[in-house]
C-alpha cells in the first residue's frame, strides 16, 4: 500500500477506483449490505452519518472481550496487562493512521465529546487552572474565537458556549451563495485578537475540502490555535495531522468502520501537556490529597474514569482495515462516486446541487434541494425503494439558512458504495419528482 498525504489541494487520486471484483470482495466484509429493506436490497447512502462495520472490526472487539477483557491501566494481573497492551496498541495504530504520535491521541466518546473536552479545558485554563503553562490557552474579553459559517453544530456550539463563559467574541468566516468559504476575508478575520480558529476539514453538507493551509499560515502569524474537525476527512482521505500542522483535531470512530462510543481528540504533544483537564477522577492523577491533586501527562490526563476499551480496540482494527484497503484507493473510489452523484443530480430538472459543481473536487458526498419537494418527503420516497439517505439540516442550520434552505437531502458514499447504487438513487430522485407531481 502506498502512503500519501492529502492536504487540501483537491483531487489527489493518482490511483484507480476499485475494480468491480475488488468492490464485491470488500462488500462481502459488510453483511448488512445484503439486508433487504422494504422489499429491496439496501442501498446505503448515509455513511456520512454513520458507516457500516466490517466483520474484522466486530471480530476484533469480540476477540478482546472473550479473551482479554479486563480493567486497563490498573491491576497487576496478567489479563489486565494484556488488556492494557492491546488498548495502547490501538492508540498507536490510530496515531500512525493520522500522522500523529500515540501520546497525542486522547480517546473520547466521539468528535462532539472531543471538541467539548477541548473547549472546557480551555475554559478551565481561562479560569487560571493549569498554572503558568496554561496561560497560552486563556481567552477572555477582547479575545476572539473564529469558526466558519459551514460548521457542523459540534464545531460551533462548544465555541459559542466558550465565548459566552469567558467573554470572548465569536466570529466566523462567511460563505458565499454557492456555499464556498470567503477566504479573502481570512486576513481581516484572523488578527492579533484571535486565539482559536476552529474549522472543518471537509464540510459534512457540501463535501468540499477546506484549504487548511491558508488557515494555519494565517493563524501562525498571530499565534492562534487551529482546531480541525476531521470527522468527514479521517474516514475518507489519507490524513497527516503533523503535515497539516494543526494544533488540535477531532474525529469519530463510528464514521470510519468502528463502533459508536469511541472518538479521538488529537493535540500537539506540548499543547496537550500544558492544557488543564476537563473531566477529573480516577486514572488521570499522580498524587491526590484531601486538598488537591497532581495530574498525569497527556493523554491519560484527559481520560478520567473507565474508558471505552473494546471500542478503542475496534477502532484500531477499523484503521487496520482502512490501511490494508488503501486510503488512496478509497479516496479515488469515493471521488469517482462523488462526481457521478454531482453530475447525475445536476442533470435532473429542478435539482439544486449544493457546494462544489460537478467537475470540482468533492468527496463522495452530495447534498441537494429539489424545488417544491421537501427533503423528508423525498427521503420517504427513496426509503420505499430501500435507499437510505439523510434528510434535514444535517446539524448545520446556519449553513442551510445562508443558502436559503431549512433542509436538504444528502447522499454519502463510502468504500463499499457502488456505481449502480448511485444510479438507483439518481433514478429514485427523478421518479420522486414525477410522483410528487412537480414535473408536469
Amino acid at each position, binding site marked *: 500500500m502506498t502512503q500519501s498525504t492529502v492536504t487540501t489541494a483537491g483531487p489527489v487520486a493518482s490511483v484507480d477506483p476499485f475494480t468491480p471484483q475488488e468492490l464485491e470482495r470488500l462488500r462481502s466484509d459488510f453483511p448488512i449490505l445484503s439486508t433487504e429493506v*422494504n422489499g429491496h436490497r439496501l442501498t446505503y447512502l448515509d455513511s456520512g452519518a454513520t458507516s457500516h462495520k466490517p466483520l474484522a472490526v466486530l471480530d476484533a472487539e469480540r476477540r478482546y472481550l472473550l479473551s482479554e477483557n479486563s480493567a486497563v491501566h490498573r491491576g497487576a494481573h496478567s489479563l489486565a496487562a494484556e488488556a492494557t497492551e492491546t488498548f495502547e496498541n490501538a492508540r498507536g495504530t490510530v496515531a500512525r493512521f493520522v500522522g500523529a504520535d500515540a501520546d497525542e491521541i486522547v480517546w473520547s466518546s466521539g468528535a462532539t465529546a472531543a471538541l467539548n473536552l477541548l473547549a472546557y479545558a480551555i475554559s478551565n485554563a481561562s479560569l487560571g487552572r493549569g498554572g503558568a503553562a496554561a496561560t497560552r490557552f486563556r481567552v477572555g474579553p477582547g479575545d476572539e474565537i473564529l469558526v466558519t459559517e459551514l460548521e457542523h453544530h459540534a464545531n460551533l456550539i462548544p465555541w459559542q458556549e466558550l465565548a459566552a463563559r469567558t467573554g470572548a467574541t465569536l466570529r466566523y468566516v462567511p460563505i458565499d451563495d454557492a456555499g464556498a468559504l470567503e477566504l479573502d476575508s481570512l486576513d481581516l478575520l484572523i488578527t492579533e485578537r484571535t486565539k482559536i480558529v476552529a474549522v472543518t476539514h471537509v464540510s459534512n453538507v457540501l463535501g468540499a475540502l477546506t484549504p487548511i493551509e491558508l488557515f494555519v499560515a494565517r493563524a501562525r502569524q498571530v499565534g492562534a490555535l487551529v482546531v480541525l474537525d476531521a470527522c468527514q476527512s479521517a474516514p475518507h482521505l489519507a490524513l497527516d495531522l503533523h503535515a497539516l500542522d494543526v494544533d488540535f483535531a477531532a474525529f469519530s470512530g463510528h464514521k470510519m468502520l468502528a463502533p459508536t462510543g469511541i472518538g479521538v481528540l488529537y493535540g500537539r504533544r506540548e499543547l496537550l501537556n500544558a492544557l488543564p483537564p476537563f473531566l477529573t477522577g480516577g486514572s488521570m492523577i499522580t498524587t491526590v490529597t484531601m486538598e488537591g491533586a497532581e495530574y498525569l501527562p497527556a493523554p491519560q490526563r484527559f481520560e478520567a474514569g473507565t474508558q471505552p476499551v473494546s471500542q478503542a480496540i475496534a477502532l484500531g482494527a477499523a484503521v487496520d482495515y482502512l490501511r490494508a484497503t488503501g486510503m488512496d484507493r478509497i479516496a479515488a473510489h469515493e471521488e469517482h462516486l462523488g462526481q457521478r452523484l454531482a453530475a447525475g443530480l445536476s442533470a435532473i430538472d429542478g435539482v439544486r446541487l449544493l457546494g462544489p459543481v460537478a467537475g470540482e473536487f468533492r468527496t463522495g458526498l452530495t447534498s441537494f434541494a429539489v424545488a417544491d419537494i421537501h427533503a*423528508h*418527503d423525498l427521503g*420517504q420516497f427513496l426509503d*420505499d425503494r430501500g435507499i437510505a439517505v439523510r434528510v434535514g439540516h444535517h446539524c448545520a442550520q446556519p449553513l442551510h439558512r445562508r443558502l436559503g434552505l*431549512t433542509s436538504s437531502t444528502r447522499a454519502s458514499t463510502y468504500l463499499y458504495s457502488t456505481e449502480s447504487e448511485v444510479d438507483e438513487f439518481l433514478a429514485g430522485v427523478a421518479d420522486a419528482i414525477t*410522483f*410528487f407531481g412537480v414535473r408536469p
Partner: protein
Amino acid sequence: MSTTDLQNLYQEVILDHSRRPHGFGLQPGADSHSHQLNPTCGDEITLELHRDRATDVVTAVRWEGHGCAISQASASLFSGLAEGLTTTEISARIDSFREAMRSRGTVEPDEELLGDAVVLGGVSKYIARVKCAMLAWVAAEDALAKLGA
C-alpha cells in the same frame, strides 16, 4: 413499506392539500397564536385562532409555515376541520387525532370526529413522520390553551 403503502401515505388528497393549502396566510385580529418547531427537520408553523367570545366558536384558523407535504396537508386539513367548532369540540378532535397518530397503525382515525383528516391515518405507521402530522395540531392545542376560558 411497499409502493401501495407509499401511495397510501401520500394520497392524492394529501398532495392536493399540501399544494393548495386551506387557511394559509395570517390575518389581523387573531385572538391567540402559537409557533411550533420540529427541531429534527427545522420545519415550523405559526397558527392563529380567531374566536367569537360569546359563542366560543372558532371562526377562522390561519397559519403560515414551511415543511413536508404531510405537515402542510395536516395544517390545511386541521384548518378546514376546526373552523366553526367550539374550542371544546376542537380539543376533543385534537385528542382523537393524537391517539390515532400515536397508535402505530392500530387505531383508525374516527371519521365522525375528524372528517377529511382521516386521510392522514397512514402516517401513524411511520414513527418518524408522526411529528410532521402533529405539528399543526400541537400548535392549535397550545393556541387554545392560551385563549383561556
